[in-house]
């Protein structure tokens, strides 16, 4: 049954796990950067906070409401952000966007994405791509604001 195959691709176990048990839910005290992202068409939300140390993201948290895709993607993202510079984080975002929009990704890039790769099935559901990118939009905003304030 094709529909179950595609659904299984979309809803991989990793994703459902992150959805049921989202990581990094603990508020960051005195965050250096934060942003809120909302998808106006569906109401899904992600609130992101992060603290910086030596130019790297050292602590991160998100709070959100929404579908499994938006929340799992945000959860996986928070896991990957730790230890990254803002530039590295944005680079990852850009690779993830390319994955979502069906562009070619190198082996190396795929490795760097870790569990994010589990979201590849979203490509077959174009309307859900926005969900997968929601948390990343908040990251993009947060880094933008941070750069403005600190640069």
């Amino acid at each position, binding site marked *: 049954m094709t*529909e179950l195959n*595609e*659904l299984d691709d979309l809803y991989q176990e990793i994703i459902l796990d992150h959805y049921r048990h989202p990581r990094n839910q603990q508020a960051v005290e005195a965050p250096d950067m934060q942003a809120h992202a909302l998808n106006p068409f*569906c109401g*899904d939300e992600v609130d992101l906070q992060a603290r910086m140390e030596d130019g790297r993201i050292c602590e991160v948290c998100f709070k959100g409401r*929404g*579908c*499994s*895709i938006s929340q799992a993607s945000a959860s996986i993202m928070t896991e990957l952000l730790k230890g990254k510079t803002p530039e590295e984080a944005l680079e990852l975002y850009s690779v993830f966007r390319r994955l979502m929009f069906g562009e070619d990704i190198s082996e190396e890039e795929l490795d760097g994405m870790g569990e994010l790769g589990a979201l590849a099935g979203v490509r077959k559901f174009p309307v*859900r791509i926005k969900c997968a990118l929601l948390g990343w939009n908040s990251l993009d905003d947060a880094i933008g604001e941070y750069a403005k304030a600190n640069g």
Partner: protein
Amino acid sequence: MLDVQAIRKDFPILHQSVHGKPLVYLDNAATTQKPRQVIQALVDYYEGYNSNVHRAVHTLGQKATAAYEESREKIANFIGAPSSQDIVYTRGTTEAINLVSYTWAEENIGPGDEIVVTEMEHHSNLVPWQRIAQAKGATLKGIPLKEDWTLDMSTLGSVITERTKLVAVTHMSNVLGTIVPVKEIVQAARRVGAKVLIDGAQAVPHMRVNVADLDCDFYAFSGHKMCGPTGIGALYVKEEVLKEMEPFHRGGEMVREVWFDRATWNDLPMRFEAGTPNIADAIALGAAVDYLQTLGMDNIRQHEIEITSYAIEAFKELEEDLDHYGPRDLQYRGGIISFYAEDVHPHDLGTFVDSYGVAIRTGHHCAMPLMRQMGLPATARASFYVYNTTEEIDILVDALKKALRYFSK
């Protein structure tokens, strides 16, 4: 009794598969499908007599003008308007309500005045009034909902006061299906001299509406939700109100005489239809009205009551994992079921059942304040029309069962 199988034959779009499954279209509150009679009206127009209206002496122009105005007559007749002059064509409900907000409300609402809506308005009957309230220093008030998802009519006396200038209420909620006793609300508004606007987007397609009987001042609805094409709808305005209103959009057609620095206005309703109108879709909306009238609005309503009651019964199988909302008394409810499962976000439900061919809507349904009121981030919604069958309800329920199982695995 309607012959639903015969009706389905009129809707070419229904006979397709989605993800290898027969399409089950249950998103009718968002937009309905179109019978071949309506599609053919568009083709006939473009292949036979497309022309700009009102100013042409040539044959095509005469035919187009006649059909465009004949359609206005049909619409007026369909909703019981005293005259076709009371019908202004708009893009849909949203433009109709904005027209009233930019014309009548601009002039008649001032500081300290109150505008009354309900707590379950669609954004299109809320955000325009927010603008007026903010611009004019007026206050927006809401008629609350009761536990049973009907309006708390006992509050009318306190919500509608001497300060109320406008009561703008939905005729049927697009989330809950709740049918609002608008006639009583008009009467309450009349007592304090307030005008009444009714958002009929969900009512006109599904039940008999008579604006003269309701005695409302403004009545707005959309063609695309009643078998008509996208891009056309109508605003009914009581003649005595319409003739006092300043025009909204300015330009060709709506003027009588134009000098370089000033202009005078054309007759009603052209005064409110600036520029080339949506001629083809206006004519096709007339064809949609013909279609619905042939079926009979009471029959359509009856069919939807049956489908909805069947669906509510069928949903009992899901009640452990899934809540649904809306009045239980089907006399006060249209063919809409909003539901929510704690374990499966509405979007995931939507994507899942789509894989089984079932089209439902998920999200806030342009009613964020109501969602907040309900304490939900979003709901999934199945909404029915005259071509839906009980077999389709079975397919929906079956797909939902599968989804609930899938996500709990």
